[in-house]
């Protein structure tokens, strides 16, 4: 317990601080522009040998939307349009907000800000993942009963592969998520480095005592 309190109230070692600033650097700029995909869905069917692709960014969804919507209307699925997602209007700001927290923690040299930011970030990630799963569920389940092709409601793959009608679908996190994951991992990494340094220090102190 005393370690936790000591840890949280303290400042950073220079190596930790570098990690925190790195996290800030990663989070701050890249998510305002749709450059790093967060999630990617690849679809392939016999008549689409080149494949269709949907790419989700922090602020929009791109790719073969028109084509996918044209096909989905046969089974009565909602058309996918970026305007339907309120998430795209706050996600870039939130991600950048986390970047600011990391930057603040680094600049002010306050470990507790970093810890708080990391916890919020973790909660946020869990929430967004749940949100994504829910969207997929809705697309697969709220099918228009008057559609030309009656299909049993289904769950599109959140991650990994599945076959839906004549389509092979592969759903994978994109580079954006990898970057976010690395930023997130920097938290535990810092903690682990801290512990190791602490131990080494204690060891050295003990050795010094023995030597004395």
């Amino acid at each position, binding site marked *: 317990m005393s370690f936790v309190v000591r840890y949280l109230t303290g400042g950073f070692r220079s190596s930790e601080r570098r990690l925190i600033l790195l996290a800030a650097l990663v989070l701050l700029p890249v998510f305002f522009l749709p450059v790093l995909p967060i999630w990617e869905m690849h679809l392939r069917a016999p008549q689409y*040998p080149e494949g269709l692709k949907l790419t989700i960014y922090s602020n929009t969804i791109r790719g073969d939307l*028109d*084509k996918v*919507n*044209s096909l989905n*209307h*046969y089974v009565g699925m*909602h058309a996918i349009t970026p305007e339907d997602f309120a998430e795209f209007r706050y996600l870039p700001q939130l991600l950048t907000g986390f970047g600011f927290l990391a930057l603040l923690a680094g600049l002010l040299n306050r470990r507790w800000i970093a810890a708080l930011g990391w916890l919020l970030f973790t909660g946020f990630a869990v929430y967004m993942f749940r949100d994504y799963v829910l969207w997929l569920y809705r697309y697969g389940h709220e099918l228009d009963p008057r559609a030309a092709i009656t299909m049993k409601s289904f769950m599109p793959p959140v991650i990994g592969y599945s076959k839906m009608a004549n389509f092979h679908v592969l759903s994978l996190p994109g580079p954006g998520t990898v970057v976010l994951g690395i930023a997130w991992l920097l938290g535990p990494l810092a903690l682990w480095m801290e512990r190791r340094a602490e131990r080494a220090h204690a060891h050295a102190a003990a050795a010094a005592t023995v030597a004395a």
Partner: protein
Amino acid sequence: MKRWMLAALAVAALVGGAALMQGCTKGIRGGGSAAAKTYVKPGEYDTYYAFLSGGHSGQVFVYGMPSCRYITTIPVFTPESAKGWGYDEESKAMLKGMNWGDAHHPGLSETDGDYDGRWLFINDMPHARIARIDLTDFTTKEIFGPIPNISAAHACPYPTPNTEYVFAASRFSIPLPYPTVDKVENYAKDFKGIIAGVKVSPEGHMSLGFEILMPPFDWDLADAGKGPSHGWEFFTCYNSEEAHDSLEIKASQNEMDYVAAVDWRAAQKAADAGEGTMIGGVKVLDPKVTKGIVYLVPVPKSPHGVDVDPSGQYICASGKLQAEVTVHSFAKLMAGIQAKKFEKEIEGIPVLAFNDVLEAKVPVGLGPLHTQFDGKGNAYTSLFLDSQIAKWKIGPPWNVTDKIDVYYSIGHLMVAGGDTRHPYGDYMVALDKLSKDRYLPVGPSHPEAAQLIDISGPKMELLYDFPTYPEPHYAQMIRADKLKPMKIYPLADNKNPYAIKSADQARVERHGKRVDAYLLAIRTHYTPDIVRVAQGDTVYFHVTNLEQDADITHGFGILFSNCDMQVEPGETKTMKWVAEKAGVTPFYCSNFCSALHQEMQGYIEVAPAGTRIASVSKPSREQLAQVAPLLRR
């Protein structure tokens, strides 16, 4: 056995196996079998596009080479229901009511004397028209003509090295302007030939640059100078006898006919200076008055083709009735002109002496028609009578080095890039006039024949023999990587004034007796799908295909009518239909588009004349609700 020995054995087996496999593939690929050289695996692309003129079909045929697979037809001068060409208002306006054409000579646009892949020009001989096909979407974008005063544009279009000009010359001289009442016996006195230079703007737009009054010979074929001869266009002629009947005999009497050399820069300069007399609504330059624009060079015995070699130094013309190719030197031609060393004048055109210009005579064989080049110092001449192609060396000793049989009666031949400054030099296509017994018999109307020939080695090698639909004359072949055809028309770029891009714009609008029906087409419905009009209305259907998916063309065909058009993804087309009788007429998608293609239909409801109909009607809210999400773009 020790472990290392096992490992060594395994490695040896692997290496041996790999070597064996490599041997096998070599056997298939490099073994030189003609089958392997033309085989393109399913799903793979050919390395060349070949554009074969469609002759009196009026179209252009696209083939993939070396597989010789027919890929598509580009409709040009003739209505073609398969692509809706000549059925929608825009293409109808381009065809101007003409229902046939005779397309002879495709000419790819060039930059610095090499194909640039922008456009393909092609002539319609009988109506003196030149079409420009855009190679980004393989459709005809412009039909220029009928060119005034030109009667049978056979020597056409043969673009210049930077596509500054395409040309046209009269094959059948007539009294000008057309039509003029005269006796054919007055041929030599009254009839005139014309050479026209048609300017091509950087955007490809064609306009008349100049016309030159020529003696009433039959102006036959053309080619553009290049390199040192850039700025000149060469034309052959027969019938310098000026015969007006029984040409077969009477036009074959003279020992010499001519190649006309036109200095198109000088001609344009004179035209720009306002020289010439008005004939048929345009100014025509008269060589009697305007000097220095055209010269005549004798060529024996009714020459057909004229072809300039890749270096631009040699002008090769073949007398049909002589067993030789006559090679003239451009440098000697220039020297003669500069020294004003002329034999005589014909209707104001200076004539050079044959021997002053001659570089060589190449004894190729019987019935030489056309010559092409491989860029490696060789020329290839088609021999109509011998049904052969002769390969000969450009330069001393000017001898024939190889011959190959073709089937049968070859007209043009085409080496890939063979009329450019840098021919590709690997393939040649023989375009034969007769197929006779080469393919499964299909009755008296035979297909034409073509052969693909490998010219990469010292000996010509026949690779493939394939039938063609009537009737390719000349062809062009360009490396596939030079073209980047679009797969769809981006909707965002659709600036058609009748385009609609969302469901709420779909409507039927009445303006007196004219009805404008704005329809959307997307898998698998039209919006609206019921169009209500009154008898006597003229209905313009403006159909926008909202698809942005490749190959999802929607047709729009109206039963019991002459109306069926094809609308490509992202495109808007307009078609006129007259409601002649009251009653119900179905329309449907005539191009299979998807799983529910059969359901893609609608009705035109024609009320008896005088019935009051709303001035604007829109699809029902219920129908809109169904399609609205799909139409949100």
